[in-house]
């Protein structure tokens, strides 16, 4: 197990390195010149050159990458003289649009996205899995048909429609969200009620989509597992239906959901762009989309992209380790 862990961990590090390199490489070859973009109104060739030097873009891309990696570990200084800024480690870069270390921007945005992701995750997992089990148990009865209808609506309604509908016809109409305070970040440690009120509708919007997928997945897994030989064995032993479901069917049927849930959750941690946009939540999704569409803020895009990749890769690792605990066959094979 320890050997397996070490192998997986080094593979994970390798993937993260490769991802950061490719993202870095892509930005280097983009037909966009940050030096010109940050030039201002009175722009001239010397100013652009000076900017290029200031941004650290006048050296080969390999050297840039080296500085970037070094900055991650020991922090980094940007600019010179009076306009010098220090970003402590881990420094992802400096946003000249926002005049802030990227790490600070990310650190401010992350709790918002984390709150959104955790709440939605809990909601969709509990709703999706229990609805899926119910549908499988009451196959072809009205509960199953209702669940199928829910799946259909949930999977076919894009978040930008369901989000707007809920915002307009529920949250605003019944004064459940104060439009002026909408999306104001409150820490759950300071004011749990306000935090909950900020996030409940975004949670519902996000969870609707995922819960539908999980309902369908759980339903088909439970039905499939129910026809396994070992379920018949359990019944032949004399176990009651509740124990068969709880101990035998669900254990096997829900194991693949661990994988799915882990990866979906990690994907959300990278930022839910549309939901954050609709509900004005200052999370990673909003940070990225602003950096991409409005500011051409390369250091920020770089940071959020790498971060999103890291979440997915790390989640993959955790899910695999978790799976080895769930399924003894994996444990021995590894």
């Amino acid at each position, binding site marked *: 197990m320890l050997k397996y862990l070490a192998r997986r961990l080094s593979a994970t590090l390798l993937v993260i390195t490769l991802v950061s390199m490719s993202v870095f490489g892509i930005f280097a070859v983009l037909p966009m010149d940050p030096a010109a973009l940050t030039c201002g109104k009175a722009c001239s060739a010397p100013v652009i050159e000076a900017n290029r030097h200031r941004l650290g873009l006048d050296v080969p891309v390999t050297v840039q990458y080296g500085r970037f990696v070094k900055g991650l570990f020991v922090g980094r200084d940007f600019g010179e003289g009076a306009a010098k800024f220090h970003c402590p480690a881990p420094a992802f870069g400096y946003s000249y649009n926002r005049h802030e270390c990227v790490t600070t921007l990310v650190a401010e945005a992350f709790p918002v996205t984390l709150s959104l992701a955790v709440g939605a995750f809990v909601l969709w997992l509990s709703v999706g899995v229990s609805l899926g089990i119910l549908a499988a148990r009451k196959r072809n009865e009205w509960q199953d048909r209702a669940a199928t209808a829910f799946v259909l609506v949930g999977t076919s309604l894009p978040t930008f429609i369901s989000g707007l509908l809920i915002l307009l016809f529920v949250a605003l109409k019944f004064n459940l969200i104060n439009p002026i305070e909408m999306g104001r970040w409150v820490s759950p440690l300071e004011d749990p009620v306000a935090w909950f009120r900020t996030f409940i509708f975004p949670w519902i919007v996000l969870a609707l989509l995922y819960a539908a997928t999980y309902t369908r997945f759980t339903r088909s897994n439970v039905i499939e597992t129910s026809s*396994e*030989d*070992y379920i*018949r*064995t*359990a*019944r*032949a*032993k*004399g*176990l*009651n239906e509740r124990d068969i479901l709880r*101990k*035998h069917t669900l*254990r*096997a049927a829900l*194991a693949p959901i661990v994988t799915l849930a882990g990866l979906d959750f990690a994907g959300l941690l990278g930022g839910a762009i549309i939901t954050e946009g609709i509900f004005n939540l200052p999370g990673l999704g909003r940070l990225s989309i602003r950096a991409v569409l409005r500011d051409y803020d390369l250091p920020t895009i770089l940071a959020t992209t790498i971060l999103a990749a890291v979440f997915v890769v790390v989640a993959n690792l955790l899910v695999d380790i978790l799976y080895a605990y*769930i*399924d*003894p*066959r994996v444990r*021995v094979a590894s």
Partner: protein
Amino acid sequence: MTQKPFLEVKNLNVAFPTEDGLVQASNDISFTVARGETLAVVGESGSGKSVTSLAVMGLHDRKRTQITGQAFLNLESGPVDVISADDEVVRKLRGKAMSMIFQDPMSALHPYYSIGNQLIEAWSLYNEGDKAAGKKRAIEMLDLVGIPDAAKRVDEFPHQFSGGMRQRVMIAMALINNPSLLIADEPTTALDVTVQSQILQLIRDMQKEFNMALILITHDLGVVAEVADRVNVMYAGKIVESGGAEDIYYRPDHPYAIGLLNSIPKIGELDSKRLVAIPGQPPSLINLPQGCSFRARCAFSDRVPGNLCATTTPTLDEKSTDHFSRCHLPEAELVKARKEIGGK
């Protein structure tokens, strides 16, 4: 048999409603098995062997199955009809009064739980006592069915066992509560030939040890000859011949049984003779037509006077003492037929 039979099945019918019609999988089945007795049920796939025993075990989904008839378990507390009894009553007989082992030991054990866990679970359903006592009993049973180093292997998982060992585990689990009836549904079909006879021997030993009634479902006639006291030959959901193992073997009465026996290759004749098969396919079990279900494949139906095979469904009649057959063929023709294709 002087003893009262432990299981008495009377006029059992099992049917599955489908979109194409009602599938009559088991048709008017009656038989008995006493403790210590071995009943073999033979027939090809789809002849209703497993369906019948699953009905006895109460393992059919009642919502999707139509079951009529009776199946009495003669318990010490009195007879219980498992067909009409409450689900909960039948459930509490499963694993205790009657147990079942299945064809494929590779998939019959839960892959996520250790052998010990699954055996203890079965034990604790009907026994008071803590986990340690259950584990002790589990090891005892594994030891009894011939799993070497049982005390250590009890904590291992099904995938760490070979097919034969897994079937031993299944047997240990089925017998852990000392049942009076064991139904073995093709217990050796999925196993290597070398392992088959070991498992069969084990089942016989266990039958003696626990003095169980044993129903052995198989399509291996070699197995039947070795272990059975009585044989039910099934075809298209019906019992077509029933009798003592010797009777069936040496004096088969039904053309289907004759054909089955004739299709066994005999050592010494392999070079000179092609394998013999019964031509044709079994009929669909939806809307079975009037008459004998076997007539389309029967080599002797033309010897039956009149058009009896097509117009009248034969009844299961006692042709000789304790030897029943469902065939219109007159006795004289039968003796001829046996000689012609049996070669015995």
